[in-house]
């Protein structure tokens, strides 16, 4: 801030050496080198993965339709999986994001410090629990327990296609998968949101309060807009985890391959990752290529989702408060 621009006498100094090359400290050079190296390495790995997927998937794309498992061609095979993957992930995201934002707000702005800190640790801890544990919980606890609720949904909200039924007797439905995934990604979204909420400048919070904002209005005016890109990033991390989640889905969902928005019946589309895990051990030849092709599609979906998130964040960059 305090730049001295007074036109005082210039400090007496030896004339600059007539070198054209800027002086670079060895430390800087090492750091620049290793950072560049790491960046390149990531790109190389990514390109390698993409190349592997493309090469291994290619036979499935050119094979006659009858050779593909199911006998109706590659599109008919992959489409229900794509649908199931997106459906499960979207349900999880729709449930988890608002909840995570609320929990993060509670921790940062409402809870007394005595409660907020342990709660924060607990959330971080939950983020580290392996997904198979959530899967077991989903199939052993949540699924049987949810049958009653799903029956209720069918009885009273059955006119909404989502809850058309008939209710699965085991409870191993898309809804339960969605909820389990939501629980799974809740901690990561909460953790990321909490970090950005904590970084909201006091200055802006006080500006809102001084205008006569209630605490909730202050949050709407200062905290949420400031944390917006952080919330989106957190949601994307969560979405990435939900899209790729394998074991939890594999052990919970009862699959028929049907493409349906009916969330509470026993006929569900599988997801790409779960399908690969379940089918891979018994697959040979073209079947393997087909599975890898579905993996390629998952790769592309993740890429698309992340680009979309970047786009949303950048669209209002001017207003991000980063300047």
């Amino acid at each position, binding site marked *: 801030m305090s730049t001295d621009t007074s036109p005082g006498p210039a400090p007496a100094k030896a004339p600059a050496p007539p070198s054209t090359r800027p002086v670079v400290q060895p430390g800087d050079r090492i750091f620049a080198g290793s950072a560049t190296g790491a960046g390149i390495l990531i790109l190389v790995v990514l390109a390698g993965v993409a190349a592997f997927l493309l090469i291994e998937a290619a036979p499935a794309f050119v094979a006659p339709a009858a050779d593909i498992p199911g006998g109706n061609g590659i599109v008919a095979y992959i489409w229900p999986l794509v649908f199931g993957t997106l459906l499960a992930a979207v349900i999880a995201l729709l449930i988890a994001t608002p909840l995570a934002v609320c929990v993060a707000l509670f921790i940062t702005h409402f809870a007394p*410090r005595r409660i907020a800190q342990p709660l924060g640790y607990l959330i971080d801890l939950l983020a580290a629990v392996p997904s198979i544990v959530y899967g077991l919980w989903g199939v052993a606890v949540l699924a049987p327990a949810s049958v009653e609720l799903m029956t209720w949904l069918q009885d009273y909200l059955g006119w909404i296609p989502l809850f058309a039924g008939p209710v699965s007797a085991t409870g191993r439905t898309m809804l339960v998968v969605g909820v389990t995934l939501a629980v799974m990604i809740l901690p990561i979204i909460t953790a990321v949101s909490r970090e950005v909420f904590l970084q909201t*400048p006091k*200055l*802006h919070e*006080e*500006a*809102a*309060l*001084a*205008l*006569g*904002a*209630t605490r909730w*209005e202050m949050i709407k*005016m*200062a905290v949420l*807009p*400031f944390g*917006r890109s952080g919330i989106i990033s957190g949601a994307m991390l969560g979405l990435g985890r939900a899209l790729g989640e394998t074991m939890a889905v594999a052990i919970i969902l009862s699959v028929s391959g049907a493409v349906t928005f009916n969330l509470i019946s026993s006929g569900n589309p599988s997801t790409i990752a779960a399908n690969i895990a379940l089918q891979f051990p018994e697959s040979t030849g073209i079947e393997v290529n087909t599975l890898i092709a579905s993996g390629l599609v998952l790769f592309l979906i993740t890429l698309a989702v992340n680009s979309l998130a970047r786009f949303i964040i950048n669209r*209002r960059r*001017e*207003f*991000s*408060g*980063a*300047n």
Partner: protein
Amino acid sequence: MGKAIEAIDLDIYYGSFLAVQGVNMTIRPKTVTALIGPSGCGKSTYLRSINRMHEVIPGARVEGSIELDGTDLYGAGVDPVGVRRQIGMVFQRPNPFPTMSIYDNVIAGQRLNNKRMRKDATDDLVERSLRGANLWNEVKDRLEKPGSGLSGGQQQRLCIARAIAVQPDVLLMDEPCSALDPISTLAIEDLINELKMDYTIVIVTHNMQQAARVSDYTGFFNIEGTGKPGKLVEMDETKKIFSQPTQKATEDYVSGRFG
């Protein structure tokens, strides 16, 4: 608009630390009152207690009372949110909302009041407030641009526009010019002179000339030593404080012989 403020036996605490002790001060309506004093003597603390922003800090509390035209702002059942809508504040560092446009910044307070306003009415309010803050001509062509893209002085005037857009009774300013160049400072001082037609203004400043230029009354706060509470030493008409103060400490301070 423009109400009187009366502080009565005011003690201000941060937790158990008594930061300001025993302030009794009468601020007349539609005047400019300057608060001066050495760093750490509690000027900001006192200022923030007037619109109940002090208690936003965890553990911070106030004893005694502050009356706005006779009603105790710290009385039972008084909502601090309502107090802050009546008493606007401009901070030391300009703090427009970075996520809002210039236009939205100005009407941010109005939006809070949940009054649905017609578009032309808000346009009107925005223009009036920005004109009132001497900023209209500089920003009228870029109202949709983010407020954080303005210069420091412009941002500070935007904050003033935002504060007066809700038509408060009182305007508190905590060193509003300390981050600004002399030209912007003059612009804001001129503005203060205009605003006192409508508002009661309390301004904290470290700049003696500024206090002398803009204020009608001046209060001098002092502190006896670290850890001791700040106190209001004396308060009087500005020219009296600067020419013939009754207290030795005041005289030393305003003549630059302090510390």
